[in-house]
C-alpha cells in the first residue's frame, strides 16, 4: 500500500460518508446548515487537492492538474452556496415551488459525494484503464442499490403502518360505517372469486394459443398477425381493458349490470398474453427429439402433444398462469367499471352479481381519508393486498423451482 493508494482510499471514504449523510438528510428532510455543507465539501475538496499535489510531484502527466481542477470546482460550489437564499422562491418565475436551501445542500452532498467517490478510483489505479473499469463498476453498484431502495421503502412502510390493522375482525367482517369499522371479508372472497373465474377462462385460451404457436404454426402471415396481436394486448393499458369491458361485456352482454363474470372476462383478456408467453416458452423448452421419437412410434401429432409435450411443460404453464393471476388480483382499473362496488355487494354468490374486491376497496378508502377515520384500515388493506399478490407470485416461483425439468 503506497501513499497514492492511501490518499485515494481516504478520498473514497470521505466522499462516501458525505454521500450517505446527504442521502440521510434528504430522506429525513433534515435542516442541513450551511457550515455542515461547507465542511463536508471542503473536506472532499482538500482531499482532492492533496491527491492532485502528490500526483503532480511524483508523475509528469497532466492528471494531477485535472484533480486540482476538480477540487477547485467543489470548493467553488461550497463557497458560492453561501449566497443561496434561505428559501429560493421559484414563484418569481411562475414555478409553483419554494425550494429551501437545505434541500439544495443535501442533494449536492449526495451527488457530489457519489461523483467524488467515483472519481477516486482513477488515482487509486494511477489513471490506468483498471481505474476507469472499477469506477464504472462502482457506479453500477450504486444504480443497483438505488433501484432496490424504493422496494424496501414501500415494503417497510406498508408492513410498519398496516400490520396493526390486521385483526380477526378485519379479516372476517363486512365493512361497517364506510370502512371505519368492520373488515374486508367480502372483498377478500371477491378478489379470490375473481381470479378463480379468470383462471378458468384464460387457461384454455392461453394454452391453446400457445400450443398452436409452438407446435403447429409455420412461419407466415397468420402467425405474424397473431404474435403482433399478443404483443399489442400485452402493452394495452389496463384502463383501456376496463373501457372495453364496460362497452362490450357490461353494456352489451349483461345489460348494463356490473358483475363478477364481466370483471373476470376483462381480467382474462389482461392476463391472456402473459399466459400465452409463458406457456409457449414452456412448450418450446421440450426438446424436438422427444416429439420425433413419439411420431416415429406411430403416434399422431395430437397424441404426441397430449402425451409427450404437455406433461413436462405443465409446471411452466402453471407458473406463468399463476403469475398472470397475481397481476390480475392487484388490478383496479379493469374491474372498477365492470365488476365492483365499494360496499353492499356482499360475498360473491353468483357469476352475474357484482362483488367487492380488495384493490377497489383500497381506492375507496383512500378517497375517504380526511373525511373519515379510515387510515389504519387503508394501510391494512394495502398490506393484505400485497400479501395476497406477493403470495401468489412466490407460490409461482416455488412451483417453477420445484417441478422444473431439465432436458
Amino acid at each position, binding site marked *: 500500500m503506497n501513499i497514492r493508494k492511501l490518499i485515494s482510499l481516504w478520498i473514497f471514504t470521505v466522499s462516501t460518508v458525505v454521500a450517505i449523510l446527504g442521502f440521510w438528510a434528504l430522506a429525513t428532510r433534515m435542516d442541513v446548515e450551511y457550515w455542515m455543507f461547507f465542511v463536508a465539501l471542503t473536506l472532499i475538496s482538500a482531499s482532492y487537492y492533496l491527491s492532485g499535489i502528490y500526483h503532480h510531484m511524483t508523475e509528469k502527466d497532466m492528471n494531477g492538474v485535472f484533480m486540482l481542477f476538480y477540487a477547485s470546482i467543489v470548493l467553488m460550489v461550497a463557497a458560492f452556496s453561501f449566497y443561496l437564499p434561505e428559501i429560493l422562491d421559484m414563484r418569481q418565475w411562475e414555478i409553483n415551488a419554494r425550494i429551501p436551501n437545505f434541500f439544495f445542500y443535501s442533494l449536492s452532498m449526495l451527488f457530489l459525494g457519489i461523483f467524488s467517490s467515483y472519481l477516486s478510483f482513477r488515482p487509486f489505479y494511477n489513471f490506468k484503464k483498471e481505474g476507469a473499469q472499477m469506477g464504472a463498476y462502482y457506479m453500477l453498484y450504486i444504480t443497483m442499490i438505488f433501484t432496490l431502495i424504493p*422496494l424496501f421503502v414501500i415494503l417497510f412502510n406498508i408492513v410498519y403502518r398496516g400490520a396493526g390493522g390486521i385483526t380477526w375482525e378485519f379479516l372476517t367482517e363486512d365493512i361497517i360505517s364506510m370502512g371505519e369499522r368492520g373488515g374486508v371479508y367480502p372483498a377478500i372472497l371477491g378478489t379470490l372469486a375473481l381470479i378463480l373465474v379468470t383462471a378458468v377462462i384464460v387457461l384454455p385460451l392461453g394454452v391453446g394459443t400457445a400450443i398452436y404457436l409452438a407446435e403447429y404454426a409455420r412461419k407466415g402471415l397468420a402467425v405474424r398477425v397473431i404474435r403482433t396481436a399478443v404483443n399489442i394486448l400485452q*402493452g394495452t393499458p389496463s384502463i383501456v381493458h376496463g373501457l372495453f369491458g364496460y362497452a362490450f361485456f357490461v353494456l352489451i352482454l349483461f345489460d348494463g349490470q356490473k358483475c363478477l363474470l364481466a370483471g373476470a372476462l376483462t381480467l382474462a383478456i389482461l392476463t391472456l398474453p402473459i399466459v400465452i408467453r409463458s406457456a409457449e416458452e414452456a412448450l418450446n423448452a421440450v426438446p424436438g427429439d422427444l416429439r420425433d421419437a413419439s411420431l416415429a412410434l406411430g403416434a399422431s401429432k395430437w397424441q404426441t402433444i397430449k402425451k409427450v409435450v404437455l406433461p413436462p411443460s405443465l409446471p411452466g404453464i402453471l407458473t406463468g398462469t399463476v403469475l398472470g393471476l397475481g397481476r390480475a388480483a392487484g388490478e383496479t382499473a379493469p374491474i372498477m367499471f365492470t365488476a365492483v362496488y365499494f360496499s353492499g355487494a356482499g360475498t360473491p354468490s353468483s357469476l352475474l352479481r357484482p362483488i367487492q374486491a380488495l384493490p377497489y376497496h*383500497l381506492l375507496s378508502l383512500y378517497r375517504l381519508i380526511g373525511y373519515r377515520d379510515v387510515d389504519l384500515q387503508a394501510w391494512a388493506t394495502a398490506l393484505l393486498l400485497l400479501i395476497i399478490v406477493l403470495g401468489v407470485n412466490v407460490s409461482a416461483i416455488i412451483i417453477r423451482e420445484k417441478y422444473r425439468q431439465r432436458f
Partner: protein
Amino acid sequence: MISRRAKDKMVHYTFFGIATVSVLIIFFIFIFLFVEAYPAIQRFGSELLSRDWNVARNQFGLLPAIFGSVLVAVGALVVAVPLGLGAAIYLSEIAPNRIRVLLKPFIELLAGIPSIVYGFIGAILLGRFLYDTFGMRGTNSFLAGILVLGVMALPIIVSMSDDSLKAVPKDLKDASLALGATKWQTIRKVTIPAAISGISSAVIMGMGRAIGETMAVMLIIGSVMRIPVPFFDIFESGNTLTALIAVQMGEAHGIIINVLFTAGIMLFTIVAVMSIISDILQKRTTDKFEGKR
C-alpha cells in the same frame, strides 16, 4: 368413425381457432372503443384536440391530458433509464451468479406490487414529502407522478435490457477481451452497442407502461385539466389520459362518456404503435445474432 388424419386436421384447426382469439380481441377492442367514441368525434371533431376543458360549457379539449401523459412518461424515463440500465448491466455482466439469483426476485417483486398500492403510498408519503419540502400549493404534482412512474417502469426496463444484454453471443465479448480490452471497455464498446436495439425496445416498453399506468397516476398527480405555465413546471398538478378516464367515468353520463372513449382510443393507439416498434426492434436483435450461430 373418423380417420386419424381427419381428426388431426380437426385438432389443428381448433387450435388455430383458439389462437385467432387474440386477434379478434384486438379487433373488438378497437371497434367497441370506436363505436362508443363516435358520437363525440362526430360532434366535436378537432375541438377534442384543443386545450380547453370545461364540462359546464361543453368544451372537451383533451390536449392537457395528452400533454400530461407525455410529460409524465418522458419524466419517468429520465428517472428510470439511467438506473434501470445500470442495474441491468450490473446484473447481466458483473454480478456473480449467486448475487444475480438473489437480486432477480427483488426486481420481480418490484414489478409485482399492484399499481393501486404504488398510488396509495405515493400519494400519502411521497406527495406529503414533496409538499413539505417544496411548499407547493397542494400535495398533487407531476413531480411525484414522475418519481413513482419512474420506479414502476424500472423492473420492465431492467428485465428486458438484462435479457437483450445476455443475448449478445459470448464470441463477440471474447474477441474483444482477447484483443486486450478490459471488461468494462468490452461492455461499453461491444456488448451495449450489440444489444442496443433490445435496450431501446426495453425503453419503449417502459415508456408504454408509464403512459398506460392508471391508478398510481390518478391518485398522485391530481385531476386538473390544465397545461402548466410554463409547461415544464412539474410542481403543478395536472392530468393524464388514463387518470382522466378513471376519474370521470365514475360519475359521467351523456356525451362525456363518448369523449372519454375517444381518450381511450388515443391511449390504445399510442401504446399499440409503441409495442409494434418495440417488437420490431427486438426482432432485429434476435435476427442479428441468430444468423451468427
